[in-house]
């Protein structure tokens, strides 16, 4: 659907750009410029206690053989898959259950919004206390319910820490997913279900043949944003585990940040660029396979 390009009035074009100027300027200055700057920095040896040198792709070559970098990549990707997967499944289930009028609507909607509305740093501190080995609530409950004999070392083992991070993240984002999916479900006309029920289909058939396909655009968008959010996770790992134990829960963003702190901006920038590329690759994948452009137009 091509617009008639030739019919641009200079007046309109001028007005349009004036209106859009703040947006364009801010984005150029505080998003585009820094990203370009980061890419440029990654081509230098830029360390606070050494002289600045152009080294081309050397940082990336070192990155390629950096065991801890790959460990971060594995953790970040695994975390993204598990966490987003869980959110999605739980979100759909909750949305389906809640998809009808329920008394006390205002109350539960507020309750559901709160995990999302609170800064991650704060909820991470609360979770840290809950996961505490000696006096945390989770161990207390688990032992008293007989689920485990000895207290579980959540934050002290790499598996425990991974699970802890996933739980905390799912806790924060599932409510948000539920709301989005609920809104999506609301756009599906009831008549379709009525017709299907008359035709004698059962619940699961209705779900897979009607609900899911019609929910698809919303699902794809939600998935896209959530996955990219998961890839760039920082707050949760910084506060809850500090990237430990033993660097096993160091997300890519945290890994880059650690280098900034040791004064090595060159290497940190290289890692940052990699995060950027991964996010970009994911976005492209989703857009290709999610028939995203359909949803836009």
């Amino acid at each position, binding site marked *: 659907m091509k*617009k008639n390009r030739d*019919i*641009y*009035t200079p007046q309109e*074009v001028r*007005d*349009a750009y004036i*209106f*859009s100027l*703040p*947006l364009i300027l*801010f*984005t150029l200055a*505080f*998003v585009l*410029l*820094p*990203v370009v700057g*980061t890419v440029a*920095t990654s081509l230098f040896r830029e360390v606070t206690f050494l002289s600045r040198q152009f080294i081309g792709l050397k940082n990336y070559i070192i990155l390629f053989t950096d065991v801890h970098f790959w460990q971060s990549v594995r953790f970040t990707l695994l975390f993204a898959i598990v966490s987003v997967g869980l959110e999605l499944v739980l979100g759909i289930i*909750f949305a389906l*259950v*809640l998809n009808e009028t*329920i008394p*006390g609507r205002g109350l*539960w*909607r*507020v*309750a559901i*919004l*709160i*995990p999302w*509305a*609170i*800064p991650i*740093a*704060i909820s991470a*501190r609360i979770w840290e*206390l*809950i996961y505490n080995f*000696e*006096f945390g609530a989770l161990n*207390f409950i688990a032992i008293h319910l007989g689920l485990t004999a000895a207290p579980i070392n959540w934050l002290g083992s790499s598996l425990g820490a991974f699970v802890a991070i996933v739980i905390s993240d799912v*806790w924060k984002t599932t409510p948000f997913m*539920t709301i*989005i999916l609920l*809104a*999506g479900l609301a*756009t599906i006309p009831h008549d379709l279900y009525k017709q299907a029920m008359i035709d004698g289909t059962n619940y699961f058939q209705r779900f897979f043949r009607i609900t899911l396909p019609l929910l698809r655009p*919303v699902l794809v*968008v939600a998935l896209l944003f959530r996955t990219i959010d998961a890839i760039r996770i*920082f707050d949760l790992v910084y506060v809850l585990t500090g990237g430990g134990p033993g660097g096993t829960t160091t997300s890519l*963003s945290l890994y*880059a940040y650690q280098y900034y702190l040791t004064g090595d901006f060159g290497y*940190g920038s290289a890692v940052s660029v990699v*995060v*950027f590329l991964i996010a970009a690759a994911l*976005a492209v994948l989703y857009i290709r396979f999610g028939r*995203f452009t359909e*949803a836009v137009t």
Partner: protein
Amino acid sequence: MTEDRIISLLKFFAVAFLVVFCLSPFLWMVIVSFSKNPDFLSPRAAFVFTLQCYTDLLTSKSVHLIDYLKNSLIVSAVSALLATFFASLSAYAVTRLHFPGRVLIPVLMLAFSMFPQVSIIGYLFKLMTTFGWINTYQALIFPYVTLGLPLALWIMLSYFSQLPAELDKAALVDGATRFQVLRKIILPIAAPGALSTVLLVFIYSFNEFLFALMLTIDYKARTIPVGIALFEGLHGQIPYGHIMASAVVATVPMILLAAAFQKRIIHGLTQGAIKG
């Protein structure tokens, strides 16, 4: 009939579970903030109710909780208002005017919203250092406005696009400028959308962590999330009680916001998602 009953029961339990699931960490936070020792669940200690944590926080002059709260509120509010304003301008242009870049701008903004913060912060830090803006409000406001623009743009776009162009035409014919049309006609009608936008960008800025961590240094500009995460200890070796008390104080604005505006917030979020 019984099938309906079962379903209603299921729904009730599901809702109850969801509510408990969402709120229990906060309940825990509140309980611990009123306890003398945070380790009252371990066999040797017991729960002792006290307001000590709160009084300590509010009387100690070396804990800057109120400063952090003030900074957060100011930075978030200004960022939210500016972002909404700029986004409204752009949204108006995109929905009402014919110009090259009409489709490009929203799509690009969407793409930019997916840039990882870590890929921006390194160079941004150096930039802010050059400007001498580290540890100031503007160091946070400018990036937050920029980061909030995509979300704001998409919400305002969805609201504006629902308003027919005829609305404008009448006023334009009468000799009003585009800006006046935006200000006097479009915005008032789309006010709910603007409110949603302001709320969402406010919440986003309030919760932001990485930028605040690297671009601020002390209580003069530091915000709540960083302040709580890097808590300066008070009495007691692991100041969990104090951290929880600070957390309670810090989360009160957000909870109030969420409670007062839950409809607006949800509407804004879903508009953004549904429309793409």
